[in-house]
């Protein structure tokens, strides 16, 4: 029976014999072990976060390799509300924001260190059909004009400001239709539903590439003044040497093959140095527009 008992013991041991290693719970600490300062870079462009990540992550990797003693982490914002919230809370150290948000940042302990070039692309155009016979702004009197959305800067406000400055009372002389998107605005004028359509130039260029036959029947009859492109802001407490180095790296990005590859993904020809004064001028201009057309509340993609 002793042998039998021994066998039973061995069986129990074999079955229950999984290593009884001591269970340790994970421990935490408030700071990252072995990590230097991590600068958060937020991208204020309301696109799919993963798409933004894919476009701008190489830029962040570039900064990480070229700014010694610091590391940069990319954050994207799913919408303007979220970006605005983070901006007010000062959650990020650097941000790439459109002109409107850049102006907001200037009032929230951020300052401009650089900006995207290619301002000339940031204009609104007013399209008419070739066969419409519309030559003068005054020809639009009594007709319908399409825009993307009411508060779209380049597709709506700037074209309306243009019409305003060229003699039209946009509230009385024309009927304003907000059709939801730039593409919709173009199709409305193409199909003859409206006499003219406001749209930003990049959207018009894209349409021309994708639908050259249809685009040949349209003409960009008028073009608005350009706005300032996306600005790069840094929080005021970011070490000046880091901010300066980031600005310099962006300013020279187009001079390297790697930099040009990064810029091509955005797409952009280059970054350039800028300061708060540049956007203060923009602010003055926008105030003028505001007074003339409508209040500035919502930026437009």
């Amino acid at each position, binding site marked *: 029976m002793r042998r039998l008992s021994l066998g039973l013991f061995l069986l129990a041991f074999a079955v229950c014999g999984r290593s009884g290693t001591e269970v340790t719970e*994970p421990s*935490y600490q*408030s*700071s990252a072990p072995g990590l230097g300062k991590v600068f958060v870079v937020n991208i204020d462009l309301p696109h799919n976060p*993963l798409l933004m990540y894919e476009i701008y992550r190489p830029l962040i990797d570039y900064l990480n390799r070229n700014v010694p003693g610091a590391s940069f982490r990319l954050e*994207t914002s*799913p919408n303007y509300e979220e970006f605005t919230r983070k901006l007010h809370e000062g959650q990020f150290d650097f941000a790439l924001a459109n002109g409107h948000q850049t102006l907001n940042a200037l009032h929230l302990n951020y300052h401009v260190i650089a900006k995207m070039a290619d301002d000339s692309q940031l204009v609104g155009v007013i399209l008419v059909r070739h066969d419409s016979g519309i030559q003068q702004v005054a020809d639009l009197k009594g007709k319908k004009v399409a825009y993307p959305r009411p508060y779209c800067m380049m597709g709506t406000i700037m074209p309306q400001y243009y019409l305003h400055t060229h003699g039209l009372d946009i509230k009385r002389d024309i009927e304003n239709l907000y059709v939801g998107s730039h593409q919709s605005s173009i199709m409305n004028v193409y199909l003859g539903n409206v006499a003219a359509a406001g749209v930003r130039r990049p959207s018009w260029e894209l349409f021309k590439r994708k639908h050259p036959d249809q685009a040949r029947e349209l003409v960009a009859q008028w073009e608005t003044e350009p706005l300032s492109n996306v600005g790069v802001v840094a929080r005021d407490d970011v070490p000046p040497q880091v901010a300066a180095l980031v600005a310099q790296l962006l300013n020279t990005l187009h001079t390297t093959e790697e930099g040009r590859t990064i810029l091509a993904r955005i797409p952009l020809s280059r970054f350039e140095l800028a300061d708060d004064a540049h956007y203060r001028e923009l602010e003055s201009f926008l105030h003028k527009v505001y007074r003339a057309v409508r209040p500035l509340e919502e930026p437009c993609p």
Partner: protein
Amino acid sequence: MKALGASLPFSVAAHGSFKRQFMLTFSVGSFVLIATFVTYLVTAERAQIYADSTEHAFDLADALKVSSLQWVPGNDLAGLQEVVNAIHDHPELRYAMVLSPQGRVLAHSDPARIGQFLADESSLAFLKGPPQSRVITDDVSRVDVAVPIQFKTWHMGWARIALGREQVVAKLHKLVWSTVLFLVVATLLSLLAARGLANRLGAGISSLVGVADQVRRGNRAVRADAGRESEEIARLGESFNLMLDNLVESEARYRTLFEEVPISLWEEDFSAVRDYLKDLRASGITDFQQYFDDHPDEVVRLADKVVVLDVNRQTLKLFGVEDAEKPHLTLRAVFLPESLDTFKAELISLAEHQYHFGREIGLHTLRHTLRGKRIDILLNLIVPEGHEETLSRVLVAIVDITELKTFEEALRQSEERYRIIADFTYDCEYWQGPDGCLLYVSPSCEMQTGYRAEEFIDDPAQLARVVHPDDVAAFEHHMQHTREPVGPLDIDFRIIRRDGSTIWLNHVCRPVYGHDNEYLGRRVSNRDITERKRLETRLEETAAYARELIESSPDPLVIVSPDGRITDLNKRSEAVTGLSREQLIGSEYSDYCTDPDKARQAFMQVLTAGYANDVTLPVRHVSGNVTELLFNGVVLKGVTGEVQGVLASARDVTKLRHLERELRELNESLERRIEEEVARSHEKDLMLIEQSQQAARELQALNESLEQRVAFEVAESRGKDHMLIQQSRLAAMGEMVHNIAHQWRQPLHALSIILSNIRDGYALHELTQESLDAEIQRARALLKQMSATVDDFRDFFRPEREAAEFEIAEAVQDALSVMDATLKDKRIEVVESLPSGLMAYGYHNQFAQAVLNLVANAKEAIQEQEVPHGRVEVSLTRSGDSAILTIQDNGGGISEEILPKIFDPYFTTKEQGSGIGLYMTKIIIQRNHRGTIEAANVGPGTRFVISLPLVKEDRPS
């Protein structure tokens, strides 16, 4: 038969021991088997449960990863926390967290951890590792896994899940205790079953053991109790009884065999010998051969110690012993002195543990019965299996081989006598078995062949290999017959001896049969007949020489036997008689003489006198003609002097008799013959005249033939030209296809655009009947243009059958228009100056093709030289009665070395060129248009100048 099984006492100790061991073995065996099986099952189940738990943790972490992917790029902590909260209530979840690559907590099932960094070693270890799914902790209480959050190649963080295993452990404990309980119950049941079986088996086995014990003591009548037939023990008892029956039967059979076998069998006890050998080994003796050599007395002593247990009847008969005298039959009683050597060998064999010993030895029987008669025996000593250790039973079998030995001796002597006869024969003797093997080859074969007898025995094919190549066929033919038992055969052939010399052999063979008429092969005798062959050859040569002498005689020669019959003659004799040799041999010689009596008299004179001279005997030819012969005869005698016949030689004197008459006739006809010769000379003159006229006719015919050949050659030459023109045209066809492709490219592109317009218009609902008609109209115009292109090319390459006037400028334009698209494609500028009104006579298309060849040549030169601004200038001018067409390019010119050859046929410097383009151009210009063409390097390229006669001044007829 008494069944003892039930009545035998059964040992309590044995019974108890068997029962205990059976129970122990059965119970422990059952326990081990069941325990092993359930342990395996439980272990496998446990591993599966843990693996499921781990997999579940990974599934949860994967879900967390996927849900977090949209929030991580934006560092949206609130969104991430919502994701974590969604799995917060998962059973056994210890914690869930989303981490940055650096270990910062972005979301956690304990929100207080958000923003903190992981600091424990295992966490830091996995953070440092590559972004791969991994198990951080896996033990009895918890499984902790992490899955990387990745987007494309960027590592964006970790999803980490820890699940507790309390339920898993509880489930396992329940499983183990159920298994243990099952094991205990199964073991107890097996113990009870073993006890019952042991009780029943023990009783039956003890009964069988008792029976076996009785049998061992010699009781062959005892049998086991097989009363309970259904049980295994009962069947075992039956088998045991059956085995006993077989044993009794076997013993009886053995006894019968032992007694009746015609071999002397001895059963002996070597136990004392075994003890002695054991002592020797114990004392360190290892070389028993040496020991017994040194101690012969011990061998004798050990022979006395062997106890003869039993002998059979054949032994008594062999050794002449009565039954009553069996006790006197000992080894020493039958041993001869030399028998002790055999016994010593037996001792050594047993000492070395070799238990089978056979040897021929000599023994002799008891003296008082057979008076010491010596017998030869064959002895075999065998130690039966099971008696190797004790040697208590040793079987010795003895066979009387005295007569066999006597026969063997007689046979040996007989063989020796035969071998002496065979070995010392002069001829090469051998015996070849039915299978071709050589059973015997006499040594004398070496004298004949140079090869030893063993070489033939080892390789019978050597017999054929020594045969001379010229005689191989005959030898093989002979050997084919010898494969069957046919009567004596002989053949003469040559062999090549080992030293390379050749000798003749007379080969005689005959079948050999055994006593039972069995065919045993062939006995062969080869005799060297080289000398005989040499003499035969010499004799044949002498006979041939004699025959030649006889035949070469211009006179008839005849040999006549003493009885007057012809025995031999030469061909001249056949000619005289008109009869063949076969007809004449054996016939009476006098039958052919016109005077047989005179012939017989002359013959008798020769026989009596020994000779006869100049006897004239006319001989009759079968045709009836008579030849006068002058005979001389001598007697022929043999070596011993006997008369063998008469040799008669005869000379034809017929001619001699006619000589004077012929001379006279010659003189008489001389004058007449002179006249005949004169007449024949006149005929020759007439013949010469005729021959002269014939030669004139042949010359005329030859001239006519020559003109026809010239005409034929000219025609053939023209055919070749046409062929070359055709080849050139085919080469141009390739160029044409290339040009058509270029001509069509633009309209095809336009057609594509028209089709796209129609499609887009339809898609955009803009397609109206008017716009569709307009597009179709445009498409038709393009297709018409393409069709016209094909027509132009077809007309250009259409062969012309008749020469005609043509406008030179128009032909040049045609050529340029064909090349137009290609030249534009290559960005080659064409500058032309082609005034109209210059007419030539010839072939419009051929001329255009010639121009095309030159322009194509210019294009290729420009391409080859990669001239950036290619240019071809074509100008037509008038110079007197000729039109001058100049084609100048800037393609770098032609090497001065090859310039003179460029118009040669098949001359080309191009890798893919045929070398007929410029040649054909020259042929077209010179032969078909009576013009000239020259080439020269001018400026940056080559200039071709064509001169054509204008039609009004010089029209070819």
